[in-house]
């Protein structure tokens, strides 16, 4: 009976040490947050995919709005802003459209399954030395409610979420 008790204590101690070890390993694996106090957003490029001008501008404006809302940065600079050259701790967001499918609002509302609009953009967060600190493929979609431009809002929300997690 005494042996069983000792065995139970021993097993408990092993399990506890294993749990603590895995928790520490998970902590070590957790990516370190990127440090940047200012960000500059460049206009979304569409080298391979033909993107309508209104989508290009809507993506750009929405991303700026959503990043300002995150309050992660002291200042969000626009493309071409001369003040960004003197900004310290600046990170630049470069984006390139890799996929675009313009759906149909009518088809979405009539069928509820067809007509989705989606935009896939490769985003790179680059520091002043030109080193890519973070890169992701982010997709903005509109499946049911709203016009096609709503996909740009979805994309901007996802960029902001990524920034919240990584900065």
């Amino acid at each position, binding site marked *: 009976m005494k042996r069983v008790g000792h065995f139970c204590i021993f097993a408990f101690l092993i399990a506890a040490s294993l749990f603590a070890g895995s928790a520490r390993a998970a902590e070590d694996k957790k990516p370190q947050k990127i440090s940047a106090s200012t960000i500059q957003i460049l206009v979304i490029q569409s080298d391979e995919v033909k993107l309508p*001008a209104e989508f290009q*501008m809507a993506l750009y404006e929405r991303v700026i709005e959503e990043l300002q809302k995150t309050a992660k940065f002291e200042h969000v600079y626009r493309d071409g802003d001369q003040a960004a050259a003197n900004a310290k701790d600046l990170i630049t967001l470069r984006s390139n459209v890799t996929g675009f499918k313009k759906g149909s609002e009518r088809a979405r509302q009539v069928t509820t399954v067809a007509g989705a609009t989606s935009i896939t953009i490769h985003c790179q967060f680059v520091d002043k030395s030109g080193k890519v600190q973070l890169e992701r493929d982010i997709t903005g979609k509109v499946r049911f409610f709203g*016009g*096609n431009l709503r996909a740009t809002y979805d994309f901007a929300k996802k960029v902001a979420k990524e920034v919240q997690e990584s900065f």
Partner: protein
Amino acid sequence: MNMRRAVPTLFVAAATLLGVVLLCPPGFAQQAVAVPDAKQVLGLEGLKHNASGTLSVDKGTLEFKSGKKKADLPVTSISDVITGNDSQRAVGGFVGTLTMFGPYGSGRFLSLFRTKIDILTIQYHDTSGGLHGAIFTMPVGKAEDVKKELLAEGAKTSIPIEPAASGQAPATPKKEEPKP
């Protein structure tokens, strides 16, 4: 004696009048464009998204007035003007969204009715060089008029207006008829 005093005064008055005449005529000669049923989708500071109002171009300024609020920017700061087209629900806004929950598929039936619209996208720079984009929607055929006026007043574009669209016949060299 009175004539001597009056001559310089008349000279100054004439010079002032001449200056006014020289400076003003181009501004008054330009014909303003105003689109009352426009919608500012996004991009103008101080205005909410999807604000309805009047878009006008006059005296080198693009102005959007929505109720008591208005936003304007100098036409010379516009670096690109692009027109496009799309369609929108005939019954839009919150009511349009509510109709989608109508019984017996009535909402879906209503969503079949759509109206065509023009889209006007502009890119402009602020005083520190930062790029801004603004998107407007308006009734069909109006965007080209606004674009023409913007270009006439000094805006730039990456897509020039086609001669057929501007109502001007393309310049073709006249062929001389062979003499008998």
